[in-house]
């Protein structure tokens, strides 16, 4: 019975808003077409078009008139909004409103897709149309309405390409037929995989980027009718092509990555940012993208326990301090952005956070635009986000400035339907009153706001127990005294500061009571001003952490005098020599050099070398392995260079200036490398070599055959399979390349393009390798396909096949003394480098380890101990030899006139355990200076103390805090997998 009533209730609702042409069997057919007029209001038609004392006229859910002199029809319901403001209701473009979270698939990892008839990868889901699952969530709608929102743009937050969105008016009393403003309001993307599938590819950021690229290529190929199968995902992608493309990212770095992929396909994503854009605002601005920015701020850390507080990184402390300035920074840089409630634990905190941002300098007019006109323009809908004639009647009625903390939001009208948030008829009756009832007088103090106004009552100095309520214009009070209860009921007297009504005493006798105001409550504006003055934002550094630079190092003219120069050239070691660095190059080497306006460094007793080059490094990257497939030639570390990694700084503190950031060894064909200069503070693009030589990582042995998996299922599981895998891929690449060169149409395949570059000798292989059998095998495979392996890296049994390596022309980049950590290194010997060198192989010593890479000078020295290399040959293993292996020896790797000014000044013989780096210079810029480093240490301590004091102040002031969080360094090696 109850259910039936419920059903009837809903039916009646839907009837009243049923579509015109729908039949009705519930009674006579009626249409509601009331006109509402709101007069004497300050109307924000748009954030910049403000009408004072204006009238807003709405009918049938639309604005039909707005202005100072709007003619009000006689049958209109008129509301006088004297002293009140009207704003367009807000728009949130990034929401999962009404769409249930997809269920996690908890099966084991798999390599194939679950879906068939769709793309080969389950995480590409442009076909997902959330309309089928959409269910108007009244509870959530109420939260949003209460926060001032009238429209949300919702979609299924799941997968890399996630399908289309729905633009929904938050109108609780209409059917979806009215609420749905646009059922194709955009297409949504992210770097995150679908939780509904355990398909392992892609398991890295760079894999996700590569997958997006290949998907776009395939969609194009499909659109041209070249595929003979049905692919509903690609069809949907093509169908959604002209929609707004929304891309959610987790940090500013990912924003630049997403934008990069978009640019390659002429797609300008609208980026859902992370709130950290202020950290690198110039790079963000350069994207020329529109953004949707969350207003979600972290709470201060609880720093009251100094032992715990000591462990919080400055990076995380700064986040708390700087984050509220993000919106202001974005606005000042004229970046087009809208705001979202996405990421907030509770929508209720939206206004509080926004007010904080305003306090931090975010302009209120821009805030209003970011909630109204900008989101409307992003989504291409001119009928929302403004109150022009013809627009949807979504608007707010407030007591004052919409973002002021003292303002009350009364009503949020959506599609011409009223939603009451705070009863407008309730007046502000706060203040002190003198109450007289039954010849006794009391003092009544009313505080609070809206329906939540409350009273405390005293008689003389004594507090009187009482209850109080004020709603629907009626006041009721109960006084509880020794003499008994007195009940009062009454109303506020119109246009006066008093109340009156009827009182009932303990015996039930009636009498009159009156109350008259003695004093209004305190003025709020003075308090607001006080709040404005306390904002203090610490400066951002590059990168934004402890040892970051507040200003980027500049190219200097530097003259190093009277120093011992390790040239890594035929000249060998030059004593008492001067070296001039100018315009980022090594300008001159000689004696008694001078240069105008040069910084002169006395090198007496010191040693100057070329910067160390690490052929095998995994620092400065957000991902290292894409192990989701046995070949991942389509991915590149260049996509995921992370310029904020502290290991960059630590490496330059040890004299390393260039690193090849290699893909890991999770699969036989790994990803492409990034060869970077460790220019601490510069961004990823600036670090990557210009005209960089093209490299790719291959791998052999235990890692690629998943030896430490309890039961691997991916081909290959043996060294036998590894050979066949290479032959297979190169055979296909050869066929592909032939077709490509023939001029016939072909399906562009990034992976095969990359492999074809190897066959065409445009890309070089650096191959992770251990035992002699597999080393020999790969050289034979290469020879079969008429190319050479460029470098064997690790190559711990290189000494066993050094003659074959020399003949093949491959270099060896090895560890100085690692062994015994797995079975394939039982015959690894520290004499490996010496034997290979003696047989004529170009030998480098590498790190594969972020710690060793900061003291490769020591590792080079070990080749003197183990195998007796000369000091010059030993030093070359970390300078000119790796430069040769990386094909950058024309630019770096030695001290030679005309080469890049990448040099290191050492306190001592550079291969001595006692040697310390005094300066590391890259392209004439001083990126590490030991004296500056000591200053930075002090500055870190000082800034931390300052922030700790600010956090303590926040806590003592009643602010919420979170427990300290300790940041753990990531430690990437060859076999590090993400997730």
């Amino acid at each position: 019975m109850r259910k039936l009533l419920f059903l009837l209730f809903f039916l009646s609702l839907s009837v009243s808003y049923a579509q015109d042409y729908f039949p009705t069997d519930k009674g006579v057919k009626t249409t509601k077409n009331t006109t509402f007029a709101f007069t004497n209001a300050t109307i924000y038609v748009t954030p910049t078009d403000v009408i004072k004392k204006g009238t807003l006229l709405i009918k049938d859910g639309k604005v039909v008139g707005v202005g100072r002199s709007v003619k009000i029809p006689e049958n209109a319901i008129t509301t006088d909004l004297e002293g009140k403001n009207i704003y367009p209701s807000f728009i949130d473009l990034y929401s999962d409103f009404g769409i249930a979270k997809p269920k996690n698939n908890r099966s084991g990892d798999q390599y194939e897709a679950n879906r068939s008839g769709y793309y080969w990868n389950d995480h590409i889901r442009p076909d997902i149309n959330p309309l089928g699952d959409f269910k108007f969530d009244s509870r959530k709608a109420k939260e949003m309405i209460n926060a001032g929102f009238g429209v949300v743009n919702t979609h299924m937050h799941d997968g890399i390409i996630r399908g289309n969105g729905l633009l929904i008016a938050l109108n609780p009393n209409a059917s979806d037929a009215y609420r749905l403003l646009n059922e194709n309001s955009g297409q949504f993307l992210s770097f995150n995989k679908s939780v509904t599938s355990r398909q392992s590819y892609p398991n890295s950021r760079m894999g996700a980027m590569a997958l997006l690229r290949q998907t776009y290529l395939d969609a194009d190929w499909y659109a041209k009718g070249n595929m003979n199968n049905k692919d509903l995902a690609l069809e949907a992608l093509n169908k959604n092509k002209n929609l707004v493309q929304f891309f959610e990212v987790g940090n500013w770095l990912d924003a630049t990555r997403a934008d990069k992929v978009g640019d390659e396909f002429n797609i300008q994503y609208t980026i859902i940012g992370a709130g950290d854009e202020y950290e690198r605002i110039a790079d963000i601005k350069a994207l020329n993208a529109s953004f949707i920015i969350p207003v979600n701020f972290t709470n201060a850390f609880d720093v009251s326990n100094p032992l715990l507080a000591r462990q919080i990184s400055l990076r995380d402390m700064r986040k708390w301090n700087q984050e509220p300035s993000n919106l202001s920074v974005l606005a000042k840089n004229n970046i087009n952005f809208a705001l979202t409630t996405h990421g907030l634990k509770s929508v209720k905190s939206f206004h509080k956070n926004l007010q904080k941002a305003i306090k931090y300098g975010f302009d209120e007019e821009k805030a209003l635009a970011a909630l109204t006109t900008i989101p409307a323009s992003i989504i291409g809908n001119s009928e929302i986000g403004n109150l022009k004639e013809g627009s949807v009647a979504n608007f707010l009625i407030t007591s004052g400035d919409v973002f002021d903390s003292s303002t009350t939001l009364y009503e949020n009208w959506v599609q011409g339907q009223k939603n009451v948030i705070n009863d407008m008829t309730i007046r502000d009756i706060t203040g002190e009153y003198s109450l007289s009832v039954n010849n006794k007088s009391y003092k009544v103090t009313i505080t609070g706001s809206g329906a939540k106004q409350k009273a405390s009552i005293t008689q003389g100095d004594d507090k009187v127990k009482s209850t109080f309520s004020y709603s629907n214009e009626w006041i009721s009070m109960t006084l509880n005294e020794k003499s008994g209860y007195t009940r009062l009921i009454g109303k506020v007297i119109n246009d006066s500061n008093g109340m009156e009504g009827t009182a009932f005493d303990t015996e039930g006798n009636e009498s009159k009571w009156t109350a008259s105001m003695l004093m209004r409550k305190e003025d709020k504006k003075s308090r607001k001003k006080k709040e404005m003055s306390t904002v203090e934002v610490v400066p951002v550094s590059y990168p934004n952490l402890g040892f970051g630079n507040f200003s980027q190092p500049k190219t200097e003219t530097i003259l190093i005098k009277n120093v011992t120069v390790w040239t890594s050239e035929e000249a060998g070691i030059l004593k008492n020599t001067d070296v001039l660095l100018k315009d980022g190059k090594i300008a001159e080497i000689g004696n008694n050099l001078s240069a105008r306006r040069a910084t002169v460094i006395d090198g007496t007793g010191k040693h100057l070398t070329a910067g160390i080059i690490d052929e095998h490094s995994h620092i400065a990257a957000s991902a290292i392995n894409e192990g989701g497939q046995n070949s991942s030639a389509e991915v590149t570390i260049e996509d995921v260079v992370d310029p904020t990694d502290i290991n960059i700084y630590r490496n330059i503190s040890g004299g390393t200036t260039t690193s090849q950031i290699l893909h890991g060894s999770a699969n036989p064909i790994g990803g492409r490398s990034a060869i970077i200069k460790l220019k601490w503070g510069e961004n990823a693009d600036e670090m990557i070599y210009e005209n960089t030589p093209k490299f790719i990582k291959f791998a052999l042995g235990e890692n690629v055959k998943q030896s430490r998996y309890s039961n691997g299922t991916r081909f290959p599981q043996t060294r036998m399979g590894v050979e066949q895998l290479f032959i297979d891929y190169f055979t296909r690449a050869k066929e592909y390349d032939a077709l490509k060169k023939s001029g016939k149409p072909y399906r562009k395949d990034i992976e095969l393009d990359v492999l074809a570059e190897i066959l065409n000798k445009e890309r070089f292989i650096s191959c992770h390798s251990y035992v002699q059998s597999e080393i020999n095998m790969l050289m034979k495979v290469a020879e079969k396909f008429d190319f050479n392996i460029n470098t064997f890296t690790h190559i711990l049994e290189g000494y066993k096949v050094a003659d074959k390596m020399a003949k093949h022309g491959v270099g060896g980049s090895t560890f100085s003394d690692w062994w015994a950590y797995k079975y394939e290194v039982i015959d690894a010997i520290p004499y490996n480098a010496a034997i290979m060198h003696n047989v004529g192989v170009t030998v480098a010593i590498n790190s594969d380890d972020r710690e060793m890479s900061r003291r490769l000078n020591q590792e080079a020295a070990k080749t003197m101990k183990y195998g007796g290399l000369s000091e010059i040959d030993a030093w070359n293993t970390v300078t000119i030899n790796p430069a040769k292996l990386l094909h950058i020896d024309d630019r770096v790797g030695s001290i030679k006139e005309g080469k890049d000014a990448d040099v290191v000044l050492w306190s001592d013989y550079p291969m001595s355990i006692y040697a310390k780096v005094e300066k590391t210079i890259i392209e004439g810029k001083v990126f590490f200076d030991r004296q500056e480093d000591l200053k930075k240490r002090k500055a870190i301590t000082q800034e931390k103390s300052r922030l700790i004091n600010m956090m303590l102040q926040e806590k003592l002031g009643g602010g919420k805090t979170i427990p300290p969080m300790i940041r753990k360094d990531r430690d990437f090696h060859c076999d590090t997998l993400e997730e």
Partner: protein
Amino acid sequence: MKNLLYSLLFFFVIANINAQQTPANKQTTAISIEGATAHLGNGKVIENSLIMFSDGKITFVGSAMQRIARLGTVIKAEGKHIYPGFIAVNASLGLAEIDAVKATLDYDEIGSMNPHVRSIIAYNAESKVVESMRPNGVLMAQITPRGGVISGTSSVVQLDAWNWEDATFKVDDAIHMNWPGSFTRGRWWLGEDPALKADPKYADYVENIKSYLANAKLYLKGNNDKKHLPFEATKGLFDGSQKLFIHANGQKELTDAVTVTKDLGVKNVVIVNAEGAESITDLLVKHNVGVVLQRPHRNPNSEDDAYDYTYTIAKTLVDKGVTVAIGMEGQMERMNTRNLPFYAGTFSAHGLDKEVALQLITSNAANILGINDKVGTLEVGKDATLFISEGDALDMKGNIINKAYIQGRDISLETHHTKLWKRYSNKYKSK
């Protein structure tokens, strides 16, 4: 027949590759080394020295200028350097051969309270990793079990032996305990906040250790119906014959570890790893607690730490009067133990005087292990466990060792590595 041939061939090949170095015989003739710079390991240096030893013991340490008869074989070592054998503390040599092959791993027994578990019987004296120590001057080591709260009991060995019994230098020298951390992080994989917070269970963990030791102490008073093997094994902690090595990090943890165990009557406490020890040096000095530092070749914990924090810590502690040695615990610790001299060198590069840095791996190590009456310095009456290096043994370039002696025995400096080096060098030469 064919099979037999193959098996023979197989054995020949295996034997050829796998043959360990044969331990040296007892010293029969006296040896006199003259002309070298002797680094005594106690901070002193003798230029142009004369060192003599017979029957495994040092009989003379002095200047070569001194007119005294050179006994036995005379080794001219002008321009070279003599050092006491380096001692690796908190090492696990011989308890595992290949990190990634579980079958070779013998350092971590199950159970959390294992004082009765003894490392010495699992020590593989013929490990190829062990023999690779000697050409770098590492001649002795404390073999330490890992894991649990009380990991077990370590022993000190010399690194040239037929079997563990031969190798034993000081059996069951110490019990090793892993002190709990006072912080815990939420289980993020269950959706908990990953923030690191004070661990509410920390007090329980400490109480657990307290009550275990207190019960052991009570038990050791006697009158027990039944034997309790783990408690029996803790006897040495209370009578002073064994040390308690507490592996701990953090100011709070280190403070608790020292005070709690001292209060319970543990006589000799050593702190191992000791991140944060710089904040409690007064306490360490007051209780005469030695510190076994982690290897300096590791990254600082926090990105705000000075890049050289792990290099300068030794200097900080030594300056405050703490006795410091160097431990090996960590990634790839066994194979890296041969880099012990360079760890000391790094501590020297970042503040310590070279001879003081040398003490960390000689006399201080011997002190902390309680074997300083026999080894750790070049002094008359001590074991002739020493080596001759071409140059500065704390530096890669100078660490070329041509002679090494353990208790006077002239030990082989060949290894699996040198054999392969020669084998393949010859291969290419003959071509």
